[in-house]
Each structure stands twice: as structure tokens, then as C-alpha cells.
């Protein structure tokens, strides 16, 4: 399928008083037209900064995109002027954010907040844009859409606000929707509703989605490809079934082991990934995951492994082949020794 977005060697850093924070360290990936890609990783691994850099939404200063290219629709977004980029933002690339409680302006009606993008990008007049806003609200399942247009955000519940955010994101029929942990701040039942909603809307509208989450459980149902990030690096990328059945990076494996499973009952304990992510102020030339890795070998401490192809459409950055049975047995023995 045709490529919609191609990110090449994107590097974003924050210049703070304490030093340079290496938030995103040269990530490259592509998103095809109509494809759903999930980016997973724990808090602070550069997921959000990575996608916000695509449309230059990170606060500058202190943030700065120091290197890389972002090809979208035949142009490098990082080289566009601010004015040119504004025509892409909210129009061809829309973004929805994590916390619907704070992401809507409290003093403007939701109708106004939806229509302003329509007026700006599609040149609609007030009447047309209000009509379209009602359609959008109905599409995302807000009951009594017409009468709610003049309500303020505080008159909506969290789930409803996230629906409004989605309606806002979809208003100009974007080719790419970036969803930055849209379900994190919501109840589990509402989470499922929002995931279903976005999946259905995608079927209907055919846009591509980048879905950022730290919840691998959410990913399984909707994404076609998964990118795992750690400490600002992409450490594994694979089709979604491969990630679950054949993870090739110890960190991915660790994430999978820490998902609660209903089908295994109480017999199996969750295995958390021990330790903390590295300090992004100071990244030595080693595998960033080595200090927390049960499979780590000497080489991991000397050299950061590059992404290498390990299967069809599957890349991973690890010196060790953890799919090898012998390696797994050795690691388990190590773990047992330590426990004893």
C-alpha cells in the first residue's frame, strides 16, 4: 500500500537548565494510507514527544527537533514554514489528546471549538459549519447533538468530552489521526467504547491512525502494526500478531508478561519489569534496556544494538535472539539463582 507518512531519523531534544534531555533519539517508521499503527512504551519513553514533533507541537524552546525528516503528502513537514504547517495541522493531520478534562477550552462552547477548524480549513460559513458540527457529534455518538452544540465542556462527562475531541479531530476529514493515549484518563468501560468508536470511524472514513498507548491490551484489538519504544528509541516493530506470539525484544516480552490475564486465573503471577527507565539526560553508548534486562550479555553494555530485520515486517534492536530456547533456559536459571 502507498506510504502516507515517512519519518526518518527524527531526533527531538529539550534544552533545560539541568542539561539536554534526549527525548527522541533518531526514530524512523512509516505509516501507510488507512493503516493503524500503535506506538507503545512506558511513560516518558518519548512516544508523545515523537508524534508531537511530527507537526511541531512541542513547545519551542525548550524543545527542539534537532534532526530528521517527516515526509507527508510529498513534503517534509519539518521544513515547512509555520504558516504552511498550519494548513496541515487540524486539516490533513489531526490530533486528539490524553486528558479530555483539560484539553477543551472551558470558556468556549463545544460548537465554537468544532466549527473554528471548519471555518479555517474548509472555508465554511457559520451556518454550514454548525450543520457539519451536528453531523460530527452524531457520528461520535453524542445524544441530542443539536441541542448540545451550545453547551460548555464542563457540562459533559469525561467520556463525552473525549467524543467531542474525536469529533473535533475528524472535522476536516484528516488523512492521518494521531491519538495520544486517548483512553488513559477514562474508565475501563468508557475506554472500550472509545476504542470501538475510533475503530468504526476508521472503517467508515478510511483514515490512517497512529495510536499511542501504554496498554498492550488496547492495541491487540485495533492496530495492524505495533512499534515499541524505549528511552526514545524504537526497539521493536512488528505486525500485531507477531508482537504477541513472537516478541523479539526482552522489553516487549516484559510488557506482555505484565498484562493481567483473565484466562490464566490465579495460578500465574504478573511479572513486572524491574527497575526504572534510564535518565534521558545522560545516555551512555549501551543498550538502554540493559540494566533491567534478564538476558543481558557483555556486548549489551558496550554497544547500542541497531534495529535489525528478524522476520517479515518484523525488526528488533537486541544482540540476543530471545526466541532461541537455549537462551530462555539460561535466563530462567539466572533468575532462579538470584531468587535463591
Amino acid at each position, binding site marked *: 500500500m502507498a506510504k502516507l507518512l515517512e519519518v526518518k531519523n527524527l531526533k527531538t531534544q529539550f534544552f533545560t537548565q539541568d542539561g539536554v534531555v534526549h527525548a527522541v533519539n533518531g526514530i524512523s517508521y512509516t505509516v501507510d494510507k488507512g493503516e493503524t499503527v500503535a506506538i507503545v512504551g512506558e511513560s516518558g519513553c518519548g512516544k508523545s514527544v515523537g508524534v508531537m514533533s511530527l507537526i511541531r*507541537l512541542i513547545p519551542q524552546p525548550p524543545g527542539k527537533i534537532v534532526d530528521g525528516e517527516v515526509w507527508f503528502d510529498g513534503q517534509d513537514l519539518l521544513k515547512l514554514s509555520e504558516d504552511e504547517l498550519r494548513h496541515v495541522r487540524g486539516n490533513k493531520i489531526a490530533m486528539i489528546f490524553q486528558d479530555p478534562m483539560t*484539553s477543551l*477550552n472551558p470558556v468556549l462552547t463545544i460548537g465554537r471549538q468544532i466549527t473554528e477548524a471548519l471555518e479555517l480549513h474548509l472555508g465554511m460559513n457559520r451556518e454550514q459549519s454548525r450543520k457539519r458540527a451536528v453531523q460530527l457529534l452524531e457520528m461520535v455518538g453524542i445524544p441530542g447533538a443539536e441541542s448540545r452544540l451550545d453547551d460548555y465542556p464542563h457540562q459533559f462527562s469525561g467520556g463525552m468530552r473525549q467524543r467531542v475531541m474525536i469529533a473535533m479531530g475528524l472535522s476536516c476529514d484528516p488523512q492521518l489521526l494521531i491519538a495520544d493515549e486517548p483512553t488513559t484518563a477514562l474508565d475501563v468501560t468508557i475506554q472500550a467504547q472509545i476504542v470501538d468508536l475510533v475503530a468504526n470511524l476508521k472503517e467508515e472514513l478510511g483514515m490512517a491512525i497512529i495510536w499511542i498507548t501504554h496498554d498492550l491490551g488496547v492495541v491487540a484489538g485495533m492496530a495492524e502494526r505495533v512499534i515499541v519504544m524505549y528511552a526514545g528509541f524504537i526497539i521493536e516493530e512488528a505486525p500485531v500478531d507477531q508482537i504477541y506470539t513472537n516478541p523479539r525484544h526482552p522489553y516487549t516480552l516484559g510488557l506482555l508478561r505484565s498484562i493481567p490475564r483473565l484466562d490464566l486465573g490465579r495460578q500465574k503471577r504478573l511479572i513486572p519489569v524491574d527497575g526504572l527507565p534510564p535518565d534521558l539526560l545522560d545516555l551512555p553508548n549501551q543498550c538502554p534496556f540493559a540494566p533491567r534486562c534478564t538476558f543481558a550479555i557483555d556486548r549489551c553494555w558496550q554497544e547500542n544494538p541497531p534495529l535489525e530485520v528478524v522476520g517479515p515486517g518484523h525488526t528488533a534492536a537486541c544482540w540476543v535472539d530471545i526466541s532461541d530456547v537455549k537462551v530462555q533456559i539460561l535466563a530462567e536459571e539466572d533468575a532462579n539463582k538470584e531468587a535463591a
Partner: protein
Amino acid sequence: MLTVFSMMRALPGGPFDFEGDKSLAKAVTDNLERRHHLDWSESWQFVSYVLGDDVAGAVCETIPSIPGCDKVLDGYKAGVSRGVIRGDLGMAMRQRGRTINGIIGESFPVSLQLGLMAIGFGLLTGIPLGTIAALKQNTTIDYAASFFAVLGLSVPSLVLGPVLIWIFALKLGWFPVSTWGAQPPFFLGFIPAPTKDFFMHAALPVTALGLALTASIARLTRASLLQVIGEDYIRTARAKGLPQSTLIVRHALRNSLIPVVTILGPLTASVVTGSFVTEFVFGIPGMGKHFITSINNRDYSMISGVTLVYALLLVIANMIVDIMYAWLDPRIKFE
């Protein structure tokens, strides 16, 4: 009201006590004091001030045994006051034959014009200044604005007024040195005809009074705008592709003005106190002059009257602030 009423009477000296050559004959003083009921006991004076002489008299006619009633019965028919409750603030004690209502009716519109223009000046200059400072954070413009704000806050109008007169009126000759350009009648009781003369006269005193407001409004706007710009919904608005100007005006400014409106209440109070000095410096026939002279003169009815008007003004100002609040922030609703 009761506090002011009894405290001013507790001050030593009365309205008709003079020293040296000016001192009046005892009989004259007694006569004057009787006319203003100052021979009555304090509580009866208060009753007559609030409710009116006739009410006090009627009470004493019915029950003459209440202490102090003999004096009341003696003098109430001379009738000075119909009582605050019926809108009569009484007779001036030191300005012969003039009512407080008349004096305030003449001077209050002028003070109101000065005060409203000063607040308007503060808002119109303070908000843009604070906005610019916030948008150009940590640049020379920002530092210049901050320096100006500190200066405006620290220089009192007592100093600023004469300096402005010296520079703009005496040296440059752009504006008149003093007095007020507006003449009654006023539209709605306080809006003057917008003549050139009026604005020329108003320019310096309004600046002297309003600059401190500009400074505090600018500082608050800057701080509040900086905070709002960091909010999530501003990022959402940017993600929509809105231009910077729309972003600031539509999304950020209204949110950041909420704390600014909050301080407008206390600022009104500072305008009132500031206007005493400013009116004095510029020789403006406003109410501030009466407030100060009446205290020195122990003109009891004048002190009470002016205090009441100022109190009412502050209450109204705070009410307007509350209404503006609800208009700015839809989360606040009056039930």
C-alpha cells in the same frame, strides 16, 4: 455607618470650635450646635440622622420618659434632616445653608468621571502591555514592561502628578495645568460631553491615577497569560492549525482575564483613595477634596455622607466584578 458616626464624634473638637481671633461667642456656638442637634445625646443624633428628625420627635412625644428626650422635644421642629433612609444626607455644618445632597451631587460626577477613566485607562493599557510581555517572554520588551510595571506600582500619584504637570503642562505646554474640563449637565448624571477641552483636562490626572492600575493589571495579565498558554487546551487549539493571533485572542486571553477581573474590585478601592490625592494635586472639584476637608473641619454630616457614597460605590463595583466574572467564565452561574 454607626462606627463612622460615633468615631468621628469621639475625635476631640467640634465643627464650631475655633481658636484665637476666629473664635465665636459662646451663644453663637450654642445656637449653631442646637441647630444641628449636637446638644442631643449621641444615640438620638444617630436616630435622627438615620430615620429623620420627625421620627425622633414622634417617638419622644409618645414616650417622653426615654432618656435624652427633653432635648429632642426642645429642638426637633427646627428640622435639619429627613433621615438617610429617605435619601437625605442632612445639612452641611460648615457650608452655610447647603445640603450634603447638593454638594455631593455636584462633586461626585466629577470624581466618578475621573475614576472610571482611570480604570478604563488601566485596562486599555495594562492588558495589551501584559499580553505583549507574556508573548515576548524573557526578551528586552518583557523586561522593559516589567520594569515599567514595578515603577508604576512604586511611584505614588502624589509624586507622579506633580512630575506630569511639570513635564507635560509646564515644560511642553501640551495640557492644561489643572482644573477639570467638564461642565454639567451630564448625560445620565455623570457622562460629560466629549469635548476636546474635557479630554485635554482629563489626560494628566487620569494618567497619574491610572498608571498604578496599568502596572498591576499588566503584571497580572502577564503571569496569568503565561500560565494559560501552557494549558492543554491551547495545545489542542494549536493542533487545529489556528493562527497565533486567534490562539491568543480567542483561546488564551479570555481565560487569562479571569484573575484580572478579580482584582478590579480591590483596584476600585485604590482608585478611590488615589483620587483624594490626585484631585488635590490637580485642583479638581471632586469629592475627594470634601472628604479630606470635612474631616479636618469635623463636619460630621459631610463625613458620613461622603463615606456612605464611597461605600455604596465599592459595593456596586464589586457587584459589577461578579457579573463580569459570570460573563467571562461559563462555569460560574448565578442561581
